[in-house]
């Protein structure tokens, strides 16, 4: 059960981060903050889960990271989804949609 739990957590985290980056480039803190805000605090990233995942995406060429100077003059490493990342995101979304629909039909949950 715990391995299923871990897999769901990991899969959903990947989906959430890639979906956010598909909208526009963001740096690590912004990604964590937005996910926490948009999910009402249900999904929360700590540094140990977020950054190793971002580096893994970078290694697989799903994202490209670049240091950019922000409006306040600070340098932040911004992540942008690549064409390869977009290609990964489409089947991931389809899998999760199918998963939620299947779960909904069994449990009777709405907006699972």
């Amino acid at each position, binding site marked *: 059960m715990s391995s299923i739990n871990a897999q769901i957590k990991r899969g959903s985290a990947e989906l959430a981060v890639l979906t956010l980056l598909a909208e526009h480039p963001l740096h690590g803190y912004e990604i964590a903050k937005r996910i926490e805000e948009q999910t009402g605090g249900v999904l929360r990233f700590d*540094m*140990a889960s977020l*950054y190793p995942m971002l580096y893994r995406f970078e290694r697989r060429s799903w994202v490209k990271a670049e240091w950019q100077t922000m409006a306040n003059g*600070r340098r932040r*490493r911004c992540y942008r989804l690549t064409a390869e990342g977009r290609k990964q995101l489409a089947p991931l979304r389809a899998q999760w949609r199918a998963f939620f629909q299947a779960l909904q039909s069994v449990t009777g949950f709405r907006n699972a």
Partner: protein
Amino acid sequence: MHNWELIVRKRLRILGVCSREITGELAAHLEDNYEALLHEGLPAEVAFHRTLRQIKGRRNRWLALRFLKEDLMSDFTRKVALPGLLTFTSSMVIAWALDMAHVQPRTIFLANGLFLSLPILWLCLLPFCGGAGALVSHRNGGSRLQRIAASLFPSAIMGAVLLLSLVSEFAISRFMQDSGRNWALVASALALWLTTYMVLSAISLLLGAAVAEKVRRISASAT
């Protein structure tokens, strides 16, 4: 003003795994977090300690472990497995050559019929294998951790084989009645074998990797 980069570097200084880029990024994350807490109206001291909590104790160890894993698994085949295989193959070739030349390990007899078999010449030649593995890993872009892993490959394999043989012997003996195994003696023998073929060989291989690293640094600074 807190120097977050210095704080992160101090806390994640495990095997030098975190590059400047990583520490810089984590420091930026903490800085943003700290300022968001100040913006929420928290006193500076409370905001600082709450931010620091993210890289303290268990969380810090977990973060370091995750980075170690990511670092080790990055391009694993080219940077660890292939150089490691070179280390392992060369160590086995040396062992075979010594056997062909009838160079026997030195045997030290201990109590209860136990003995320690010390392949001294093989252990003396192992640093060359460890050094070669570390150099190939470096040439393929391996990090420090990956170079260490590549040079320690033979010890890991031998340790795994010895433990596997113990487990299989234990499993087989369960199907045999009155096998008469003295498991305390078997465990002692295994500990002795592990000492020679895992611990001593690991020290020898690491020594080679350390010398190779030193030579590489000297030659790099000379050019």
